[in-house]
């Protein structure tokens, strides 16, 4: 294992030590890495960044509630074959013409060791991960229709994300490395914002972050604003050219941050927030 194939974060993605060490463990031992965390903490992005920084091709398999494990391997398009047979098409004699490759197959065929992202695995049926155990373990599967064994040329680095909507089966978990992306603290958040808005004025950044964490700390919010919402908000602040002073807490008008719609996405949260601000003002006055 050469030292060049280690993940050390990228310019556009701030990775904590724990995350780096988990990615590297998965890389070295060629086991899947399961990533969980609050929405908006960059789970999906991780695969893209890892592939980018290691210079490896990326295959993305986005899971929906109707996705079946087989679809990642291949699908046999029986209907097309049936149609062709009724139309008298010559293609019909070769069953291989109707085998549609899935993402896993594509990744297995890759010339270079690829990165395979299985995004939001918890969206699928509860048995979905179990159906993939063998394939992820041995990195091979059998195509019954054509009687061929598909084997991975290079074991891909598999990154799996989950939003915890369903619990994953133990047998599946045992085979993975696991990392939970926790919500970034102020210091890491600063680094993240800087990556996205290089050269942002220091005072604006500090004020915006303080404001952001204040909103996050409001008790009882149904949906706390996340990193991606913070980035959107800063983008808006810059676009609207909001003066830094408007973010300062001492200015009582600004207790509701400007353009808060980017941070609070829930009507109840906005009401709650306004009520708190109102009470705060009454107490202050």
């Amino acid at each position, binding site marked *: *294992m050469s030292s060049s194939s280690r993940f050390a974060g990228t310019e556009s993605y701030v990775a904590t*030590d*724990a995350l780096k*060490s*988990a990615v*590297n*463990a*998965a890389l*070295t*031992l060629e*086991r899947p*890495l*399961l990533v*969980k965390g609050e929405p908006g903490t960059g789970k999906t992005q991780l695969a893209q960044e890892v592939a980018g920084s290691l210079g490896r091709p990326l295959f993305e398999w986005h899971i929906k509630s109707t996705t079946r494990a087989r679809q990642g391997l291949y699908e046999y398009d*029986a*209907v097309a074959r*049936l149609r062709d*047979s*009724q139309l008298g098409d010559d293609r019909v004699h070769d069953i291989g013409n109707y085998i549609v490759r899935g993402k896993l197959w594509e990744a297995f065929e890759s010339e270079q060791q690829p990165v395979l992202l299985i995004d939001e695995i918890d969206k699928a049926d*509860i048995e979905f991960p179990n159906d993939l155990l063998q394939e992820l373990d041995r990195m091979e599967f059998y195509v019954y229709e054509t009687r061929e064994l598909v084997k991975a040329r290079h074991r891909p680095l598999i990154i799996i994300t989950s939003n*915890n*909507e*369903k*619990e*994953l089966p*133990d047998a599946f*978990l*045992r*085979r*993975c*490395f*696991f*990392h*939970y992306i*926790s919500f970034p603290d102020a210091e890491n958040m600063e680094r993240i914002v800087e990556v996205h808005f290089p050269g942002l004025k220091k005072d604006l950044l500090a004020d915006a972050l303080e404001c952001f964490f204040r909103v996050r700390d409001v008790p009882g919010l149904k949906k706390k604003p996340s990193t991606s919402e913070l980035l959107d908000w800063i983008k808006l602040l810059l676009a609207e050219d909001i003066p830094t002073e408007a973010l300062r807490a001492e200015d009582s008008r600004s207790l509701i941050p400007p353009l808060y719609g980017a941070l609070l996405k829930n009507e109840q949260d906005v009401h709650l927030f306004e009520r708190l601000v109102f009470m705060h003002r009454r107490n202050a006055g």
Partner: protein
Amino acid sequence: MLVDFFSRLRAAGLPVSITEYLALLEGLSRGLGDHSVDEFYLLARAALVKDERLLDRFDQAFGEWFEGREATIRRLVADLPADWLKLRGELDLTPEQLEEAQRYESLEALMDALKERLEEQEKRHEGGNRWIGTRGTSPFGHGGHNPSGVRMGGKGGQGRAAKVWEQRTYRDLDDRRELGTRNLKVALRRLRQFAREGAATELDLDDTIGSTARNGGWLDIRMRPERHNAVKILLLLDVGGSMDGHVRVCEELFSEARAEFKYLEHYYFHNCVYESLWRDNRRREATRIATMEVIHRYPRDWRVIFVGDATMGPYEIVSPGGSIEHWNEEPGSAWMARLLDAFPSAAWLNPQPERYWNHMPSIRLLKDLMGERMFSLSPAGLEDAMRALRRRSAPPVRPAPETPA
């Protein structure tokens, strides 16, 4: 050497398996621990813990294990070199000490001695997580003197005051936290039982292919009903009085259950179940229904979930006329028994923290009536409850009294 670590994690209730332990060892042998305790901690965490709710428990267990073994672990991860014995030469040793050290013929013997000594040390010093070689004959240094060559002491790498695991960043994610809608969902999904029933609305591809083939190649479309969760739930909720403090969590449970189960019926009661229940708490009298009718209306395969704090006077359960709201001819316990007899699959969810249960006679009574199937309304409790509901055969409960005429 890590077996101790492994068993300690298991003792702490972490479901670590051999596979995962081997993955950790493999990682270490490939140099992933990277010679620092922090790296070792991160690797162990990624390899052994697969659920963020368990991270805090892992941190605690790691801390406990680490405490007192700091030196051993450091040595373990700090690329324990074959030239260990060579280092001995760099120590400040008296001739007698050198002699003693040389008695250890092999590396293993030396290690064993070291380990033994470390353990001894732990026993003698409370929380002794620091290597102090108090014995004049020790080959490992003495009198609190820390030969830097061996780096056994409290110095080096670990100078930082806060160890990662001691920060306990993941405390909030622990299982024992209160319920959020998300874990409610996850727990309720345990009860899923898929079935195809009702109108055929979905193309059954396999059957279509099969029957088309039998049909001599002419298309024969086959349809089938959609798959859905076929579990049927009867939810009985305690309202008012002492339940007021638990309104939010019950509301959430209710709304999640609504979304998850296609067949969900709910009724309310107050404190204990008596001869009638009601459907709408605001229009209690208008929506009142006899409990007997509920029992008759739903078939046996419905599962009953009671939600209530079961906190009341014991007479409200066991005596006729015990209800605080009206005169009840029969005690609540009789009605409970009838319900449980009609619906063998049942569970009681109690929002009261479990540690109070034993101090509250009414809770003990109801728990007994339920055949021990009372669970706390926490993520862990809810999961146990769902598991109990999945079980087909219910534990024996006391026989139901005669049905009133």
